[in-house]
């Protein structure tokens, strides 16, 4: 708990590691993730560093791995990546150099295999195309084929040319006609056709026939549809030109004998060779699959190994070394309580690498603020994330996350109070929690992942909604009559005229003994029920809001005390507290006073001036007309109000002026070379970095004094800045006190909207359907109602309530104390677990 309240204490360490032990040590450290390394070579660019060659090697290996991955993925498209974590022993068993060699070999093998495969395939493709040309081509030139083709309905591209339609195959043998046959891809076909037409000026006959089978193009890795074409053209010159055209279009030309018998013979020859090659292709394919599956099984292991090595080399690039280059120097931050652990890791690293010189750990004193580190677990992580989305805490600054764990779900539930909806939410979150191990292993879709990450917060929100729903007495919009309404006349109630049996509602009196917990169910049906709920929820929002804000201000005191900034306590915290409580704290007290008076007691009823006062008017009157009080709630109220008003007014300049003026005075005295140590000034100056180490901080101070005069201009400027800063803060606080309090009324508004919506759905949809007295209508009505309940109330409404709760925490609560300087940086340890 303490670690969540304030961040873990950090120390800066400098490690001296023997050259031979550096890698092993860093691996050990990375395995445990307890050290954030600082970059000691910031002025060097990426490729000038010592280990950039090794990183380059890793990049190269990653490239090879990717290439293999692609090959494997092609053969096994459905291959699932086994994400099982690899043990360290397995990883350590691999040597990087060996892996590199192995990968190179594999790449070569696979490359060779692919080449072979490709040439085999293209050979097969050629034969296949030839086959099709012979088969489809002879179809095209059968006499009377035109009518036949149209009967078959095959795809043909019409006759281009002016040849005599009554030609016979004899014409083919004419020496003036040339015949070109081949295969072209369907995509290029239209352009090809057009060009052939243009080149031959229409003096040729083209026939096309689409091949039904799709071919796999190994080069482009895609499937292509092809078409057989046969072109007749007169004249040698034109023939040559068209042939050239075919070549530029990437068409494959094949031998197409003129007469039928040779064609038959060729066809059978081609078919035979095709069969032969099919068997070869089959065996090659199975071989290829086997090799690749062997590779595929090890790919993830290798990838992880390379990734780890790359991460380690990246870290080693951040190291400095001594002049002899025998000792590497690392600097970084580590949690104070992990120091011993770190030292043992150093020893372990030396032991593993059998280094001659053991590593040394030295404490450093740093001018920079340490990074902020909160140890979170799977439960607190989500709350910490919510807080950090707003800003990272400065080092050792108070962390609102530990309060958020309770206040967040609670404020959410105030807006979302309904037992039924809360129950659904709880069950959903419970499911996520119970199956978290199973769900965590596989990748989820975005929305589900979002819910999964927030499963604990959703669970708590559900639980709190159960509670508030119970108080509001709502179950899917229905009031539960658990203990029996006290407003109805019955034997156990003590009054004679209740809501249901009084002719005049104003005559009905409240029951003597009240409903044990929550709201009496009768309110949901009463005519003045809404007014009653509104009055209650509005006041409740103000009470909760003021409590939370006062707590925020109090937390700023804890921060100021922790960092020993007395100025902040006396001139920021105190006036803020007084201002807030004088106005809104007083309002809360008034609310409680009003609640605790029995406005129906006989004494009050008999007194005509005894009627519930309007608190808004009292509060406004307190400012506008301090002496006047329309109704007195307690004795001496007038005096108290005037006193509070005076306090509030005084606290404004109190907030504004003293702090910058005192800082200025201290600074002046500092300038006059008086031995006066201004801790406050530096704190503001350096931006609340909370550096408590007073021993070393005196050093820069001396420096500051010695050349103080030269920095006058700068410091003057700083003073102006501080003053403006303080002014902004004061204005923000004073105005914010009003607007923030009003902002909490969203609790009431959202809760009102939620209950009204659920009631409307219930009455208009479900009850409306029931009123039809038709079982099918009831069924449909129920479905619609259920859909609306889940979709609108449980999803959309919960999202909106979540966002409003988020806003109340970020703006209204945290701006009182948290991250005012905004200079925190997160602790990012070097960890091999997170890199892989």
């Amino acid at each position: 708990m303490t670690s969540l309240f304030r961040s873990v204490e950090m120390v800066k360490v400098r490690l001296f590691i023997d050259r031979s032990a550096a890698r092993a040590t860093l691996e050990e450290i990375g395995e445990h993730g307890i050290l954030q390394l600082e970059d000691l070579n910031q002025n060097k660019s990426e490729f000038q560093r010592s280990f950039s060659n090794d990183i380059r090697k890793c990049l190269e290996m990653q490239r090879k791995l990717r290439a293999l991955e692609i090959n494997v993925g092609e053969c096994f498209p459905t291959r699932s990546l086994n994400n099982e974590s690899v043990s360290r022993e397995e990883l350590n068993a691999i040597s990087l150099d060996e892996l590199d060699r192995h990968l190179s070999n594999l790449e070569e093998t696979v490359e060779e295999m692919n080449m072979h495969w490709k040439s085999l395939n293209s050979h097969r493709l050629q034969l296949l195309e030839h086959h099709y040309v012979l088969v489809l081509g002879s179809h095209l030139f059968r006499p009377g084929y035109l009518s036949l083709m149209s009967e078959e309905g095959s795809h043909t591209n019409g006759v281009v040319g002016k040849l005599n339609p009554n030609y016979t195959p004899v014409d083919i043998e004419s020496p003036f006609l040339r015949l070109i046959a081949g295969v072209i891809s369907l995509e290029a076909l239209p352009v090809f056709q057009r060009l052939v037409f243009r080149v031959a000026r229409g003096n040729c006959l083209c026939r096309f026939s689409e091949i039904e089978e799709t071919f796999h193009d190994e080069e482009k890795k895609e499937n292509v549809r092809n078409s057989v074409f046969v072109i007749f053209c007169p004249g040698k010159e034109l023939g040559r030109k068209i042939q050239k055209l075919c070549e530029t279009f990437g068409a494959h030309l094949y031998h197409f004998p003129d007469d039928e018998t040779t064609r038959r013979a060729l066809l059978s020859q081609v078919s035979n060779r095709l069969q032969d090659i099919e068997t070869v292709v089959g065996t090659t394919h199975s071989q290829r699959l086997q090799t690749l599956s062997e590779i595929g099984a090890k790919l993830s292991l290798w990838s992880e190994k390379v990734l780890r090595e790359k991460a380690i080399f990246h870290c080693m690039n951040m190291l400095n070394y001594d002049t002899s280059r025998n000792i590497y120097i690392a600097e970084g931050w580590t949690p104070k309580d992990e120091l011993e652990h770190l030292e043992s890791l150093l020893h372990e690293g030396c032991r593993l690498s059998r280094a001659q010189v053991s590593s040394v750990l030295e404490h450093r004193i740093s001018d920079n603020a340490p990074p902020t580190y909160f140890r979170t677990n799977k439960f607190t992580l989500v709350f910490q994330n919510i807080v950090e989305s707003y800003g990272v805490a400065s080092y050792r600054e108070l962390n609102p996350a530990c309060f958020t764990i309770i206040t967040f779900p609670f404020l959410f539930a105030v807006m979302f109070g309904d037992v039924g909806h809360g129950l659904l939410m709880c069950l959903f979150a419970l499911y996520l929690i119970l199956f978290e191990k199973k769900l965590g292993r596989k990748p989820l879709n975005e929305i589900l992942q979002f819910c999964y990450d927030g499963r604990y917060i959703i669970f708590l929100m559900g639980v709190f909604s159960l509670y508030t729903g119970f108080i509001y007495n709502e179950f899917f919009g229905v009031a539960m009559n658990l203990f029996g309404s006290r407003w109805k006349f019955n034997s156990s109630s003590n009054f004679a005229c209740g809501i249901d049996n009084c002719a005049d509602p104003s005559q009905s009196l409240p029951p003597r003994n009240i409903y044990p917990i929550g709201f009496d169910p009768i309110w949901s049906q009463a005519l003045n029920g809404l007014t009653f709920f509104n009055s209650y929820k509005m006041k409740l929002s103000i009470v909760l809001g003021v409590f939370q804000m006062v707590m925020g201000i109090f937390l700023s005191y804890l921060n100021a005390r922790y960092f020993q900034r007395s100025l902040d306590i006396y001139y920021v915290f105190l006036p803020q507290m007084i201002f807030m409580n004088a106005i809104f704290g007083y309002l809360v007290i008034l609310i409680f006073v009003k609640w605790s008076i029995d406005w129906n007691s006989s004494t009050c009823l008999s007194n005509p001036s005894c009627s519930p006062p309007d608190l808004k008017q009292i509060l406004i009157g307190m400012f506008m007309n301090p002496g006047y009080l329309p109704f007195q709630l307690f004795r001496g109220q007038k005096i108290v109000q005037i006193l509070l008003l005076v306090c509030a007014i005084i606290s404004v300049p109190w907030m504004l002026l003293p702090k910058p003026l005192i800082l200025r005075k201290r600074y002046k005295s500092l300038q006059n070379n008086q031995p006066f140590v201004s801790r406050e000034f530096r704190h503001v100056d350096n931006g609340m970095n909370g550096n408590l180490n007073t021993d070393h901080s005196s050093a820069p101070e001396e420096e500051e004094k010695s050349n103080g005069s030269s920095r006058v201009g700068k410091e003057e400027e700083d003073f102006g800045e501080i003053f403006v800063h303080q002014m902004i803060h004061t204005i923000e606080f004073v105005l914010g006190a009003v607007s923030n309090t009003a902002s909490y009324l969203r609790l009431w508004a959202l809760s009102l909207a939620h209950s009204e919506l659920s009631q409307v759905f219930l009455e208009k949809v479900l009850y409306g359907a029931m009123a039809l007295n038709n079982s099918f209508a009831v069924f449909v009505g129920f479905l619609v109602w259920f859909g609306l309940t889940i979709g609108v109330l449980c999803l959309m409404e919960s999202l909106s309530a979540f966002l409003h709760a988020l806003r109340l925490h970020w703006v209204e609560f945290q701006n009182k104390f948290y991250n005012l300087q905004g200079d925190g940086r997160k602790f990012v340890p070097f960890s091999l677990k997170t890199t892989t």
Partner: protein
Amino acid sequence: MEDIRELVGFNVDDGYIEALVRGYKSSLLSSIDYVNLTQCETLEDVRMHLNGTEYSVVLQDEPSPLSASIIAEKCSIKLVSDFQYIRSQSTYPLTKFLDYLTYPYMIDNLVLLVTGTLHERDIGELLEKCNPLGSFPAMSTLSIVSTPEELYREILVDTPLAPYFAECISFDDLTETNIEIIRNILYKAYLEDFYRFCSSLGGTTEKIMNEILQFEADRRIINITLNSLGSKLSREERENLYPSIGSLVPEGTMKLARAEDLQSVNSILDSYDLFRRLLQYSTDSPGKSLEDSFIEYEVQLSKKTFEQQFHYGVFYGFLKLREQEIRNILWICECISQRHRTGIGNYVTIF
């Protein structure tokens, strides 16, 4: 009024793409990147540095050893894919505008292929050298033509360059000079057409693009003049190649057409403020030609397009800047691989 129309209407169709291009622009290499690149020892270092930029995706899967041309090629792939993405997202008239941007590449490809075929080079090899931005259907079949008429009738008629080619059909055959003249005529027709198109768009686009295109035309006029000094091109022929737009028209072009030597060209240009400055710049800084100062001025113009909003000039600017960046990378890589360290600083810093 025009401004208001742009303000209200521009983002309806083109807002997303403009934002996209501005995003691309912000990923251009900075001067710090260039300084780091020039310090590289090997091309592997270059790759390592480029890994931190947007080029990492295209470079990471390239096996070692690298060569300067491979790096530049991969970088162009990135440019082409970005451009094609923009193109596919756009609607008329931006689509048309973007198409216009690709025509110069088409002209270059055409000339490259025809010249290559003339020298009987392998078509596959030539195709690899072509700029993918300027590819057009039937590009590969250019090798089958032997006369301008065939060129037009069989191939160009399908491309957007067809109307530009009208003047060239009358040439008898494809000789090297004729090809060069064809290129210039095509380019002239293209510039004039693009200029008309931009003017028809109106508004800021017109203002910005016209400045750029006029400069482009001036630059061509000057280059044509300089290249034709001492050739047997007649005065009329030379004047015929000059685009009819630009700040040099008509007085400057009339004089330039008559110019006989470098001296007279310089003295004609001296009366134009911009070219006086550019000439001055190229004579003042050693190792820089007039062309270099043109390039630098073009970069300036391209950068300036990003200073206004709601116009199409940014697309032009982005394309030019990215191209220049790739040329810079290529230059630096070449210097590194040839151990020519003294000239390594001769790249054009963009940002």
